[in-house]
């Protein structure tokens, strides 16, 4: 009797809740879901509705492109003028089109993440950017598979149509060319020079009536500067034997490469053998025959070694020159750049290292618009390139931009040398670099071979060294060829 009275006092809501078939808990969960759903309905997640989306891994690039994206029109002023002369009514239409602002969403993504993110996006066909910048060493991996199904558009027709091919040194395009298609626009050229401690080297050479510019070959370099060598205290060059970075520079300087223009592996050809047989003794010889030293290419020690005078010169692509300015500030006014000494008289005085490409993805919403923007940021105003050059020291491949004053300014860090002119003078000589999807595997095997060769030379010296190098490079290359042989002939399958 008493219980019934309490029930009545609970009221209809409580009774309704008690009658719920699954109890109160599911009702609460459902209620929370409903509230969350309604909240999202009222406050939808903002998805950028930009006309173009671009992924960039360099913060400086991102800043520059954001500036360039402001006021990005569909038509160039030149086209407007032409139409204006022909048909005033048409010109009004075109002018109207110019006023349309196209929003470009520039997204800065970590260097290592951008490749994975792009690969995932292409696999899932979700959130693929219209444009993307990727680094040279990763580019080849994206060019694998049937030609018509590569994730990037072939830009050759655009480059030809707009007359841009002639503005770019031909070798700069080689890296991003695959089976005749050009999948990427080169952002840079990256000539390699020799950066050296002018405060140590120049007075020494002056005493001998020489200048650094007189040392035309590597033999000249090591012979004339040998007096500066102090075992365990000072070496003439930094050459890392634990990774293939320096080796690739020397290899391309001699006309070699890891892959041929047709994608064949050539890391064990005679040029590679001779390059390795020449390079390893520089760091592996004993006593005063060891003229170079390894201290890592990417460690903090690399800069410290130069500052402390542990070595007096380093291989220096354009991008590395700005890193030296940043991480070896103590050397302000003490450094100079000269063309690389050649392997032999009359040989190449530069090489190539690094690079970034801009690709337009096959799923770009509006490829023509993407091309217009790509052109604007890569082959746009010389002032824009000049601004970037002052910060990064990276040389654009667009010859028209080289007229900007930034490329003709003296740089106090580099003993008032005109850096831009130095790089420009070498631009057309920069050797081609051919990419491949198997580049990471090939480079890993080269690293292995180099370490083996180093160990062999340390143990046995010059006796039978060249034969060992030949055999070691061949076994490394055979491994990569084995991997390549597994690759189906995708184009034939198509």
């Amino acid at each position, binding site marked *: 009797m008493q219980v019934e009275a309490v029930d009545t006092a609970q009221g209809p809501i409580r009774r309704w809740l008690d009658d719920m078939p699954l109890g109160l808990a599911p009702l609460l969960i459902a209620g929370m879901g409903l509230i969350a759903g309604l909240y999202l309905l009222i406050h939808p997640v903002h998805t950028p509705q930009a006309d173009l989306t671009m992924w960039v891994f360099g913060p400086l690039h991102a800043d520059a492109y954001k500036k360039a994206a402001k006021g990005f029109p569909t038509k160039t002023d030149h086209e407007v003028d032409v139409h204006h002369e022909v048909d005033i009514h048409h010109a009004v239409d075109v002018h109207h089109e110019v006023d349309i602002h196209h929003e470009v969403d520039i997204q800065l993504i970590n260097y290592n993440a951008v490749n994975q993110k792009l690969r995932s996006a292409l*696999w899932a066909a979700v959130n693929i950017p219209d444009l993307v910048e990727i680094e040279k060493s990763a580019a080849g991996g*994206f060019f694998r598979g049937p030609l018509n199904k590569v994730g990037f558009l072939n830009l050759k027709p655009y480059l030809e149509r707009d007359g841009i091919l002639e503005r770019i040194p031909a070798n700069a395009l080689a890296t991003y060319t695959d089976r005749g298609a050009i999948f990427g626009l080169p952002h840079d050229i990256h000539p390699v020079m020799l950066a050296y401690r002018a405060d140590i080297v120049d007075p020494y050479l002056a005493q001998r009536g020489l200048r650094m510019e007189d040392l035309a070959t590597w033999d000249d370099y090591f012979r004339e500067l040998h007096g500066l060598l102090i075992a*365990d205290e000072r070496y003439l060059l930094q050459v890392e034997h634990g990774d293939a970075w320096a080796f690739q520079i020397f290899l391309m300087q001699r006309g070699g490469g890891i892959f041929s223009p047709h994608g064949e592996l050539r890391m064990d050809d005679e040029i590679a053998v001779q390059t390795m047989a020449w390079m390893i003794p520089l760091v592996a010889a004993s006593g005063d025959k060891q003229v170079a030293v390894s201290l890592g290419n990417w460690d903090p*020690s690399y800069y410290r070694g130069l500052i402390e005078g542990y070595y007096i010169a380093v291989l220096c692509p354009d991008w590395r020159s700005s890193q030296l300015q940043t991480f070896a500030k103590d050397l302000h006014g003490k450094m100079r750049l000269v063309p690389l000494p050649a392997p032999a008289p009359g040989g190449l005085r530069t090489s190539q290292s690094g690079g970034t490409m801009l690709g337009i993805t096959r799923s770009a919403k509006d490829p023509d618009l993407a091309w217009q923007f790509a052109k604007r940021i890569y082959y746009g105003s010389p002032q824009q390139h000049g601004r970037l050059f002052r910060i990064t020291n990276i040389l654009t491949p667009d010859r028209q931009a080289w007229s900007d004053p930034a490329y003709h300014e003296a740089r106090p860090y580099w003993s008032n040398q005109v850096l831009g002119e130095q790089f420009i003078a070498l631009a057309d000589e920069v050797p081609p670099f051919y990419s491949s999807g198997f580049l*990471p595997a090939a480079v890993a095997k080269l690293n292995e071979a180099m370490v083996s060769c180093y160990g062999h030379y340390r143990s046995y010296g010059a006796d039978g060294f060249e034969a060992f190098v030949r055999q070691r490079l061949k076994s490394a290359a055979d*491994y990569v060829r084995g991997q390549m042989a597994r*690759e189906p002939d995708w184009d034939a399958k198509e």
Partner: protein
Amino acid sequence: MQLNSSRSAPYLFLAPFVLSFLIFGAYPIIRSMILSLYITSGPEAQQFVGLDNYLHLLQDPDFWTAFRNTATFAIGSVALQLPLSLGLAILLNRSDMRGRNVFRFIFFSPNLMGLVFSALLFMLILAPKFGLLNASLHALFGLPSTTRWLSTPELVMPALIMVALWLYTGFNMVYFLAALQSVDGELYEAATIDGAGRWSQFWHVTLPGIKPVLIFVVVLSTIGSFQLFELAYLLLGNGSGPDQAGLTIVMYLYQNGFLGGDLGYAAAIGWTLAGMVLILSMIQLRLTGAGKEGR
């Protein structure tokens, strides 16, 4: 009606998890298993090769290099880490130890820093010529200051084990501390009355008392060691080190899948690793008799 609803209630409660597991757990697992039977070059270029990826893997010297490196790391780090962690835990479990909370915090603190920070720190410490370790060894013992810890093939794995030791010893120490505190103190009193010495107490009281935790830590550390990637990747400058001395199985998977673009082969590496870890864990559980106690 009420009865039916009650019966369906557990299923409805489980439904959100089951659904999300099927979509985000089971589907990717099955998909990756299928993927491992293909050679791939991007999403639209796939060729069915059956078990060829697995057969190729078994003949791939790089895979065996990666396996050897990973096993060396696993054995080296587990064999050094666990005794050290246990020793520290026993030391810091003593009630008469002054400032033990401070020491507990100090030994655990590397875990608070994160892997990336630790890797950067050790890149500086291990740097040749100008690094702290080389400078100290040179000053104290006259050893050469140019030792290239991360660039000499023979030294890469010891360096990685050393960093892992610094990172995880304190972490495992916490597990052991918790286990030691759960051992009944009366057992030690009884053992002391029976004339058992410290060593005897350790073998016959402490170790059996913490055995479940010990097995847990051994299995977890082994699995973690076999999944080594980030530490080596960061310390060796995004590569596998000189002469592939730092190439681990997961790094090899990453190189094939995300640098080379063959996700099929990468999936086969992943499944092989999963199989290895499963077998290894079963062997460990069998050897330690962990499964029998629950029966």
